[in-house]
């Protein structure tokens, strides 16, 4: 009985807590909706412009590079950047909350969000880093060729190379570990769904 009374007390404390009771007029809601949409569009535009600038710079390299290896590297960077921009275009709108929130029970919605994040983490290396690697590697080969003429720079080149590889392995491992953590949460939701 005492426990039931405590539960009732806590519910009362919860429901009678002081509130600001601010309402949002419809006009403000519409303004915010439009502002939110514009913000997403501006963010997408910034990413496309960034991609376009990158493509333009490497296009200039491509046109003016003295040797075929640098030209090939520039072409690969341009292709990689275009791929990333295309990927952003296809998936850039996923940050907006869906309009059908009320149709999904929280369990389904939460699972969808976790799966989306996990897939993003799993794939980030392949769609954000890997497309630039072939072009960057060719630039690196060109740099090594030039530096090998002066062997005293060999240590520096080795350090740069191992640093680059180390950073990529680190990024890959961090993302893999975060994805595994999300996998465990998804498995927990699947267990609850099986019991539902």
């Amino acid at each position, binding site marked *: 009985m005492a*426990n039931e009374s*405590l539960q009732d007390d806590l519910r009362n404390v*919860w429901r009678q807590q002081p509130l600001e009771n601010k309402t949002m007029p419809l006009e403000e809601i519409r303004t915010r*909706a439009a502002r939110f949409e514009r913000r997403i569009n501006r963010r997408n535009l910034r990413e496309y412009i960034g991609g376009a600038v990158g493509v333009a710079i490497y296009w200039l390299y491509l046109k003016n590079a003295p040797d075929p290896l640098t030209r090939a590297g520039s072409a690969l960077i341009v292709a990689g950047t275009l791929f990333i921009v295309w990927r952003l275009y296809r998936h850039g709108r996923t940050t907006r*909350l869906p309009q059908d*929130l009320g149709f999904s029970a*929280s369990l389904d919605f939460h699972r969808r969000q976790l799966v989306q994040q996990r897939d993003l983490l799993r794939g980030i290396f392949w769609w954000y880093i890997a497309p630039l690697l072939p072009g960057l590697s060719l630039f690196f080969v060109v740099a090594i060729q030039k530096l090998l003429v002066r062997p005293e720079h060999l240590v520096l080149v080795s350090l740069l190379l191992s640093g680059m590889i180390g950073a990529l392995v680190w990024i890959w491992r961090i993302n893999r570990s975060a994805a595994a953590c999300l996998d465990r949460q998804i498995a927990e939701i699947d267990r*609850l769904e099986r019991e539902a």
Partner: protein
Amino acid sequence: MTTWSVDSSQDGRYLTAAAEFGPALERLARAYEADPDRRRDLLQEVHLALWRSFASWNGACSMRTWVYRVAHNAATSHVMRERRARSQVLVSVEELEAMPDPAAPEAAAGDRQALDRLLALVQGLKPLDRQVILSYLEGLEAAEIGEITGISAGNVATKIHRIKNVLARRFHQGACHGE
């Protein structure tokens, strides 16, 4: 220039829901976000999501279920975004039940302190468990909590039982009224 397809029924439904559930939505935002400024943003985000959602409401479930689903889903998105930014560790009701109790609350704790402790407890829970405890505190029945969350009635009952245990251990009788 973005245009929204708006009909009067969307506006009307939103206004009805906002009038009826406005206080509950504010309490919900408080349970999901401790920072006052971010909480205001979250509450606006929930209202925005609710208004947008009524463009596709078909009456298949009660308005209360719909409102809570939309609000919890929008707030869960917020928690997941913020958690990434703040590296916050959330626990389940089961983990909370297994944890040793914090230092015994003072018997003279008043409603304000009880509310603060309740909020701290709720804000540290994983999203699904947070939805169950919030719905319980709002006085929803187990069947409706199941409809909102998608968790089976049996699991909801188990979770509520555990929630009651945790609350009983952390708040003793009289702590809510400053006795």
